[in-house]
């Protein structure tokens, strides 16, 4: 029966067509305000003083939920009680060994007093509860939420309140090495899907009460927990407020990955450039927090978001800070070159070979010309074709199981490249250009930025193929203007190059030594610019190795 599916959809579309006006950005809003509460509308249910009624309601709410466990028992053999939890989300051992035993064997006097209402529900908590994380819940919505979160809810007969006992424990991946951002030197821990583990990873590195972790719950169905984390003394309160507001604005059915949020809180949603950095490395998040940035952790995602994000961050890798600064600086420069190559090389090749032949040294020109004899396609088409092939290869390599993927990319690159060249379909130099471009795009630490550049590369290619260097320049200018309009949570995207800040250049194209990084990035960490004490540059101790002639102080 298609009706029930189609109709609401139509209605939703219809509603989105004429937004009520208060939503100006993403059309994700479904209109009415009641949507914030989860289905079924829990306002209809209420905790009553009668356990039986409460259980009935709960059973109705969790109807056909086979993973919900409901257990009736007598607390202290005197008062009727019930435990409610979801199997798989709780530490069953804890419940069975400790909780049940304690509750059932509760002092009869306590049970009597509870039954007589001479003592409050809190007495259970105060006297016998073997768990620490216990909260009193007084409405059905909270009960349901807690149950869904993996807590165990204890209901007592005669009370219109319940106790939510934190018994969360579910199967999750162990902390592993970061896959997307592996380093030679540096911590090998990465975030996992469990939010609590992730926050613990952060907290373990930042042992300060200044590290704040604000909880936001988003997603009508997924009820995903999201943590806004920042160091209170460093982060710009305006940015924190902005993050909070942007998150609270979101009304969505579900959040499966931090990318959902990323797309909903970006400053310029139409830009091809990533404006929010993401990472699976706790150390990178901590470094960002220490600079005054704000992290956003999302449950069920191993990727944390970092805001505000600047363009330069995409050519920085956390390892830069763990290796010697000469190497890091060199690598950063190399990445910058790679960035340019990834964006421009095929375009420049096409421009030079079809418009500006005078630029080539004669020998090279002649070589290229002889290579291209008999190639049936214009250089632009050839470049686009090869680039597309390369993208396909890459895509296929990523999706396939790892061992197969490797074989595929080798086979693809070698066989197709070789065959295409020997068949005279493409010129060898074009294969070199495309390969170099591919390598360069892999050299960019940020996958998101690399993807953006890949897309822009095609536009540049078309521009170069139609207008030569002039076209490339037009494209670059448009990109430049666009980048200049971008802001990430109020911070200019291209800072510190523009607006120019020389002091921030210590950590842009080069990384200066640790002892010279005395201040935080001015646009982000301005609340407390001093990162470390001055004069940290180590000098050999004068006493340990005194110069023969004269002592230096």
């Amino acid at each position: 029966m298609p009706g029930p599916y189609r109709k609401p959809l139509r209605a939703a579309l219809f509603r989105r067509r004429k937004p009520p006006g208060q939503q100006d950005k993403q059309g994700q809003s479904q209109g009415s305000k009641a949507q914030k509460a989860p289905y079924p509308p829990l306002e209809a249910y209420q905790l009553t003083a009668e356990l039986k009624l409460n259980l009935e309601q709960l059973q109705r709410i969790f109807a056909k939920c086979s993973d919900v466990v409901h257990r009736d028992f007598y607390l202290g053999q005197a008062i009727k009680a019930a435990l409610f939890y979801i199997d798989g989300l709780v530490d069953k051992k804890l419940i069975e060994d400790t909780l049940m035993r304690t509750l059932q064997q509760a002092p009869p006097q306590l049970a009597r007093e509870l039954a007589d209402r001479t003592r409050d529900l809190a007495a259970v908590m105060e006297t016998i509860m073997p768990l620490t994380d216990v909260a009193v819940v007084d409405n059905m919505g909270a009960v349901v939420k807690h149950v869904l979160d993996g807590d165990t809810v204890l209901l007592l007969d005669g009370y219109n309140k319940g106790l939510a006992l934190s018994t969360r424990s579910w199967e999750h991946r162990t902390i592993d090495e970061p896959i997307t951002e592996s380093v030679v030197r540096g911590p090998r821990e990465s975030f996992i899907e469990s939010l609590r583990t992730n926050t613990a990873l952060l907290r373990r590195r930042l042992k300060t009460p200044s590290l704040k972790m604000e909880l936001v719950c988003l997603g009508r169905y997924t009820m995903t927990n999201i943590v806004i984390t920042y160091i209170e003394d460093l982060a710009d309160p305006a940015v924190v407020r902005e993050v909070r507001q942007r998150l609270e604005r979101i009304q969505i059915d579900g959040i499966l990955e931090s990318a959902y949020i990323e797309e909903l809180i970006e400053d310029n949603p139409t830009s091809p450039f990533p404006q929010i950095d993401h990472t699976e490395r706790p150390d990178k998040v901590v470094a960002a927090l220490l600079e005054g940035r704000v992290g956003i952790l999302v449950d069920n995602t191993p990727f944390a978001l970092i805001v505000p994000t600047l363009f330069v961050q995409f050519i920085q890798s956390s390892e830069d800070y763990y290796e010697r600064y000469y190497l890091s600086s060199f690598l950063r420069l190399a990445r910058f070159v790679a960035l340019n190559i990834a964006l421009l090389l095929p375009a420049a090749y096409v421009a030079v070979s079809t418009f500006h032949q005078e630029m080539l040294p004669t020998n090279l020109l002649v070589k290229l010309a002889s290579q291209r004899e008999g190639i049936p396609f214009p250089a632009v088409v050839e470049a686009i074709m090869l680039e597309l092939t390369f993208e396909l290869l890459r895509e296929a390599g990523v999706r396939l199981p790892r061992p197969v993927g490797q074989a595929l990319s080798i086979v693809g690159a070698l066989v197709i490249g070789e065959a295409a060249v020997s068949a005279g379909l493409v010129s060898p130099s074009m294969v070199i250009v495309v390969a170099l471009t591919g390598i360069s795009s892999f050299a960019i630490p940020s996958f998101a930025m690399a993807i953006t550049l890949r897309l822009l590369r095609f536009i540049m290619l078309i521009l170069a193929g139609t207008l030569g260097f002039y076209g490339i320049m037009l494209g670059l200018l448009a990109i430049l203007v666009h980048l200049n309009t971008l802001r990430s949570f109020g911070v200019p995207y291209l800072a510190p190059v523009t607006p120019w800040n020389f002091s921030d250049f210590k950590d842009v194209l080069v990384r200066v030594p640790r002892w010279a990084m005395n201040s935080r990035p001015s646009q982000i960490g301005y609340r407390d610019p001093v990162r470390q004490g001055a004069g940290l540059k180590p000098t050999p101790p004068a006493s340990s190795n005194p110069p023969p002639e004269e002592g230096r102080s």
Partner: protein
Amino acid sequence: MREEGYISPRQAAVLLWFAVLPTAILFLPALLALRAHQDAWLSVIVATLAAGAVALVVYLLAQRFPHHTLFQYCELILGPVTGKTVALIFVLAFFLLDAVVIREFSEFLVTAVMPETPALFFSLSIVAVAVYAARNGLEVIARCTDFILPLMVTFIAIVLLFATPEMAPRNLLPILENGFRPVLGGALVSWSFLGQIFILAAYGAFVNPPRALRASLISGLLGIAFFLSLVTMGTILVFGSCEAARLTFAAYALARVVSLGQFFERIEALFLAIWVGGVFIKITINLYVVALGLATVTGLKEYRPLVAPLGALNVAMATLLYRNISEIRHDLLLVEPGWTLTWQLILPLFLLVMAWLRGKRRTGI
């Protein structure tokens, strides 16, 4: 109307460079060599002194009316009707200037790079990007220069550096062969480019802090004089004044001479690319000023909607203005000096005098 962004004094100065240099380095050296022969570079310096007068007037006006654009204080000084008329003249002048720049730009590209492509296409494409930039406001334009300027400076430096083997110092001699008059004649021609620093009157109101305006005027003017005389001198040194005068696009010819070792010869395509960046800023800033001025004169809340139609009109105007490059040269030599002197010096001077007479000044915001 107000613009929300502010620019730093340094950016203001750099914008000044970009408001003058891109077309100037391309066209001026040859015209100067025609007028002042081997003393062309002296003409630049003389013209700079003369342009100092513009800078002074702009500065004095800006001091009287801080946080006000040219178009705003026109009205404050002369009253609503006359003021609006004069402001409209300025708008038109900037508009024409922009059209001329667009035309020069496309003329150059067609002649030197892609003769088969219609000139209209170049004007259209660059203005499209310029519209995009101008809509984003002064701050974005200024920040774009932060990227283009280093490229431009590096490139000029490279060209001049690697052209040194081709340079013959004797080409500069004898100095002042025919006295000072040809130099003055050359100065008059360079005036039509150097006077464009007047554009600071239009965007100087957004310089923060306002009292740094003087510094940006001075450094802007000095930078322009430095680069312009350097390029002029380089052209004369390489080609000699006779041959330099024959060149249509002097700086481009200079770039074509350069060879970086045996490998990196013929770098003019790079020159083209970087120069396009410079002209882009010049067109954008002018377009922005025109839109801002028109919005001010007509009392609009926003200039943004005007940018795109103005850009389109500008392209049409650029096509209409001249029939051929000879007319452009003729105008640059024989019309522009008088015209630019009138609206970039005399008219502002008149404003200043009126303001002084009427005792008008505005100190607050």
